[in-house]
């Protein structure tokens, strides 16, 4: 499996995603520059965290116009796996690949800490290796992670089992405690927490492997190999 990690100007979790995939999970990963119109021969794509183009307008609002996003859209429409983490989630909503929007945290402050979450569905390529209802802890680090959408959209997400992660202790005011969602075709996922920051026992947690090992479709026993 080869994962392409998109690098926007201002991405700053790109190396973390690369390290988790290559050093902790022993899979192939390569960077894709934002001006690239092609994704090459990758099998899956990660949109990493950070501040794409500075995010001085709305988070992700500029990134959606970059050449690489056209390629990501085509990839997604053809059924390719796309995982957006933090800023990547924001970019996916701006690009229209996922519904809703991420706005300023309810308390108006950036927040960095580990939060408890529930994996709300295992019926997805991003969670199929997790146990149904599994509780995990993942770090969050964002100023604009409050998920909002209109009632109809929220109802539909729930009816279609597309809420994939929920906060157990809502840190940012997200509607219905939503921390991560799936596209209608279930091949695109956006999440605010950072699984790549919880993929190495040395930094305190390997809970992120529940998601990354599903995404890469490698056994969770890779945990034991984590460096």
């Amino acid at each position, binding site marked *: 499996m080869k994962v392409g990690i998109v690098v926007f*100007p*201002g991405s*700053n*979790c790109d*190396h*973390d995603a690369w*390290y*988790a995939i290559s*050093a902790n999970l022993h899979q192939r990963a390569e960077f894709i520059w934002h001006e690239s119109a092609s994704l090459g021969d990758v099998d899956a794509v990660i949109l990493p*965290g*950070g*501040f794409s*183009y*500075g*995010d*001085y307008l709305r988070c992700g609002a500029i990134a959606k116009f970059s050449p690489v996003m056209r390629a990501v859209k085509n990839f997604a429409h053809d059924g390719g796996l796309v995982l957006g983490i933090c800023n990547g989630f924001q970019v996916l909503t701006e690009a229209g690949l996922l519904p809703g929007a991420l706005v300023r945290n309810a308390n108006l*402050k*950036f*927040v*960095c*800490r580990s939060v408890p979450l529930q994996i709300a569905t295992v019926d997805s390529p991003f969670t199929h290796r997790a146990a149904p209802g599994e509780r995990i802890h993942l*770090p969050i*680090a964002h*100023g604009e992670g409050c998920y909002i959408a209109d009632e109809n959209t929220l109802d539909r997400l729930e009816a279609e089992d597309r809420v994939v992660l929920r906060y157990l202790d809502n840190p940012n005011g997200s509607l219905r405690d939503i921390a991560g969602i799936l596209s209608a075709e279930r091949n695109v996922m956006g999440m605010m927490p*950072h699984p*790549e*920051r919880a*993929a*190495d*026992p*040395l*930094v*305190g947690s390997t809970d992120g492997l529940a998601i990354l090992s599903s995404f890469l479709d490698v056994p969770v026993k890779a945990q034991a190999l984590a460096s």
Partner: protein
Amino acid sequence: MSAITPEVIAAHQLTAPEYEKIVSLLGREPTMTELGIFSVMWSEHCSYKSSRVHLKKLPTESKRVLQGPGENAGIIDIGDGIAIAFKIESHNHPSFIEPFQGAATGVGGILRDIFTMGARPIAVMDSIRFGKLDDEKTGPRNRRILEGVVSGIAHYGNCFGVPTVGGECVFEESYDGNPLVNVFALGVARHDEIFYGKASGIGNPVIYVGAKTGRDGIHGASMASAEFTEESKQKRPNVQVGDPFLEKLLLEACLEAMQTGAIVGIQDMGAAGLTSSTCEMGSRAGTGVEIDLQYVPQRETGMTPYEMMLSESQERMLLVAQSGREHEVFAVFKKWGLDAVQIGVVTGDGMLRVKDHGEVFAEIPNRALADEAPRYHRPYTKPLRLAPLQAPRVASKNLTADLKALLSSGDICSKQWVWQQYDYQVRTNTLAGPGSDAAIVRIKGTNISIAMALDGNGRYCALDPREGTKLIVAECCRNLSTMGALPIATTNNLNFGNPERPEIMAQIVESIEGLAEACRFFDVPVTGGNVSLYNETLGSPIFPTPVVGIVGTLETAPPIANVFGQAGLPVILLGGLGDADWKQLGGTQYAKVVLNSLWGTPPKLDMDYEKRVQATVRELVRDRAVESAHDIGDGGLAVALAESCFGPAGVGADITLDAELAPELLLFHEGPSRILLSTSSSERVFAAAGKNNVQALQIGVTLEARVAIRNRNEILIDSRVAELKDLWTNALEHLLRNLVLV
């Protein structure tokens, strides 16, 4: 051109003798542009003219030091061909005038100092000091400054993508009109990737990269070299505005451009912008630098040479490339969407020559600016001392209530309200983050981790600047040793009042001499730092506040816990109960919080004993012979014990002491050289302590949910852990929120 009158000279904060020296160095009257250039280069901020003769006393060498003071940052060899670059810098004055941007650009400036050396920044720490939050009169302003500073640091560091892994946050009346914002940054590079700020090679192009130049920050360096007065508010345009996104691009572009091999030297445009970068790079290489300002990217029209040379617009760098290979550098900056323009050339005449459209506006020997600034042997007497020597009568009514007051006080309570606003995990290297005795950051691809801590103590230094500074160095080293790391090098930020006052100058001299003695003794040479003087508002100086940042190394491994993890383990006090008299209680947090007073002398330090205690704990932590280790510092034994109980497991302790000391001293004295351990192999602890000839007392056992301290048969403290933890955890938010609502 306006005439240079005595008023104009004074407005540039130059004295009459300094002006005469300028005239004699040039052999003529300076132009206005030249006067401006001299005024910033000879400001206290850039020239260290009051402190330089004393800074020479600091130890700066060891076998690990690759670069000592004088460059953009110090560099230390940590083995495996890897080096770390680190430094601390203040942004006190800008942060008072405009807290958010002042603090943000403080972070930006120190990050550039690191990556200009070729090192990728991997950690930031901040030491911040404010007036009291609950003061009726100044509280609202102090809370506003705190909020602004914290969000400014968060804004810049989070977007740039560097973790803010630790620091300190202190509240004290003396910082009411003069907050301190000291930011530390550390980066990592291979030995062969290190770059220096040298304009070598006659004929090589001088290239400007990064943000465009505007009128912001003009005379920032001179502002930072004057006391605050009522008019200071009008200095707002002197504060620069930061753009962390641009800095992130600048970082990536600079590191990538360095890989081409086409760069000869590089330096950031910090204080005094184009001026300092040109003349310092020329001076270091013994060359001249000639630039023409018409090529400088500008975001305002009609700027004069004077304004362009003094602008402190952020996110700019100056570099010298190999002649003929400029295009390789330009290509990288183009990729990152940044300006990169040749603005001049390296010459052989040693002059800084500034032209605009061919016309010469300044022509000054580089050395005159960078190296021949005045050096003052300012007169000094005895350090300013306002506190009495004699102790008042101390008799606690309720020791448990005293402990609760300490745990909910601004200095001791949890700072999570602060550090949760910082991304402390980005780059996934943070093994121990904020709230730990010292932060630990691993270096991927090696087996080496770096430990780091910042420490200051204005109260100790107000009582005795020399002993106070030695205690700070000891404490900072102890923080590292407690995590199992060997301290190897120091950076320092000396925050003091007006050096033209002999009693303040005495504080500076004594503090530097104390720093020199302690750094020499603990073998942590000083590789650089920053001096911030004139920290006074309306004639009232801050406490003398040297802040030290010490770094160390250890093998990469899961970090030792600072909190108890399981019940039923022996609790050992390494270093013993310590000794203290009533005089030595005067500088403690107990005196501050419970008695609202300051008197006497700082705690007594035996450096030799301290060194042996630290060697012992390093050995025990490295060999995994202890389950937890926590340094005893602010608030003494009782506070350290309570903090050890605040882990996720909520494990407390049952402690029985056997001491002659009065309970207030026993619980709350801040004598150094002490570390609290829990262990399942007491014999190994006693053996290691015995070998190093230091005391180790088993004082109790860990237990579920309660914390109790007895001396002989008397119960001193008894409380539920959860109750204490709740106070400690929420105190800062309460301080901020309750008072906002009132």
